[in-house]
Structure formats: structure tokens, C-alpha cells
């Protein structure tokens, strides 16, 4: 079956632009997660959704970062007024379980801010 998909796969933004990154989780998965992976580092947790509810956003680095999942399926991570330090791969993961550590990851969106 289809896995987690993310779009676009690559995004180049000029500093100060807003960007929106999309995640399509596996159908029926109630949990959805976003991670940020800087070059040469492991992924770092950003936020967690259970259906449409954002239960944990403790990892979002600043108020420029905003995530939503309005209908409990597709999610969008939005970054306003992008900065160079936002350059990273943004990973989305989903799980059929609540608060689950078993997560299925998408291929990521590589964001480059110039």
C-alpha cells in the first residue's frame, strides 16, 4: 500500500518568504508527527497530532513555525519569514496507534533558504 508522501520533495526559498510543506499520511493513521533534520544530524521532534488535535508542539523552534491538520488526515507545516537556519529536511511520520513510538516516515522535504 501507499506509504507516507510529502510534497514538494525540494523547496528553495529566499530569506523572508513563507513556505508550506505538505504531508499525506498513510490512510487511517490517527497519529501524525513532524521532525526537522539538519544536515549531518538526526531528526528532531517538532510536533504531534492525534487526529486533528495538536497535542504537542513543544519542538517548534519559534512562532514562525505553524502546523495544522484540519480534517485529521493531510497536514501542512508552514514556516513564515524563512531564515537561513530553517534550511533542513522536514520529515513527516504517521502511526495507526495513539501516542505511538512505532512511526512510518515519509521521504522528507528538503528546504533550502538562500
Amino acid at each position, binding site marked *: 500500500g501507499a*506509504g*507516507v508522501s510529502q510534497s514538494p520533495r525540494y523547496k528553495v526559498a529566499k530569506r523572508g518568504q513563507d513556505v508550506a510543506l505538505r504531508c499525506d499520511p498513510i490512510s487511517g493513521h490517527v*497519529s501524525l*508527527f513532524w*521532525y526537522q533534520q539538519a544536515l*549531518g*544530524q*538526526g*531528526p*528532531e*521532534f517538532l510536533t*504531534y497530532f492525534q487526529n486533528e488535535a495538536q497535542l*504537542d508542539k513543544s*519542538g517548534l523552534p519559534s512562532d514562525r513555525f505553524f502546523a495544522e491538520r484540519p480534517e485529521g488526515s493531510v497536514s501542512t507545516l508552514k514556516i513564515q519569514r524563512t531564515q537561513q537556519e530553517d534550511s533542513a529536511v522536514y*520529515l513527516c*511520520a504517521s*502511526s495507526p496507534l495513539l*501516542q*505511538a*513510538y*512505532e*512511526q*512510518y*516516515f*515519509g*521521504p*522528507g522535504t528538503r528546504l533550502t533558504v538562500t
Partner: protein
Amino acid sequence: AQSVTQLDSHVSVSEGTPVLLRCNYSSSYSPSLFWYVQHPNKGLQLLLKYTSAATLVKGINGFEAEFKKSETSFHLTKPSAHMSDAAEYFCVVSDGEDSSYKLIFGSGTRLLVRP
């Protein structure tokens, strides 16, 4: 706070020889530990997991890991490397009983397999 340390940023082995990727963890409770693999342009894939059952855990593609509480280690091994094993490997701990969904990744070990 929970954390993991991957002791080698790069490991190079010859095809057919054993693989050892080292990981030490720090946890204030009995942890859940994982190894994930990341191939270029592909999503992270779960190799294996330890969740307080058997200390020797077998995963996919012939990998296994042993949880050693006395050494706070969770090293990943494979008896014989294959070219297709070349990838980035991450040791991961879940954050805690109240936020077990929050995965904490090590910095990764890049495995190179020489023909």
C-alpha cells in the same frame, strides 16, 4: 532526560564481514530503544525495537541488537555485510512514559560497504 550517543559517525566494512554500530543511551527509566535506517531519498525505516522484553532483539535484513543495561548500550550488529546495507543508521530512544511518541535520535552512523 533521555538521550542516545552514537559513538562512530562513519563505519567502513568489506562486504561479507561483520557490522558493529555502537550506541549508548541515557535514561531515567526503563527505555524503549530502536534502530532506524535511512537510505538516500527514502524514508526512515524501522530496523528493530526493544521494549523491555527479550534483551536480544532481531530485526529485518539480518540485523540484531542487544540491550545491555549494565553498560547502557544497544549496539547494532550483522554477521555479514551486504552492499545494500550501505546507508545511515540512527539509534533512537523514546522520550518517556508520558511522551513515548517523541523519538530522540542520535546523530547517526554512516555505514560504507566496500566490495
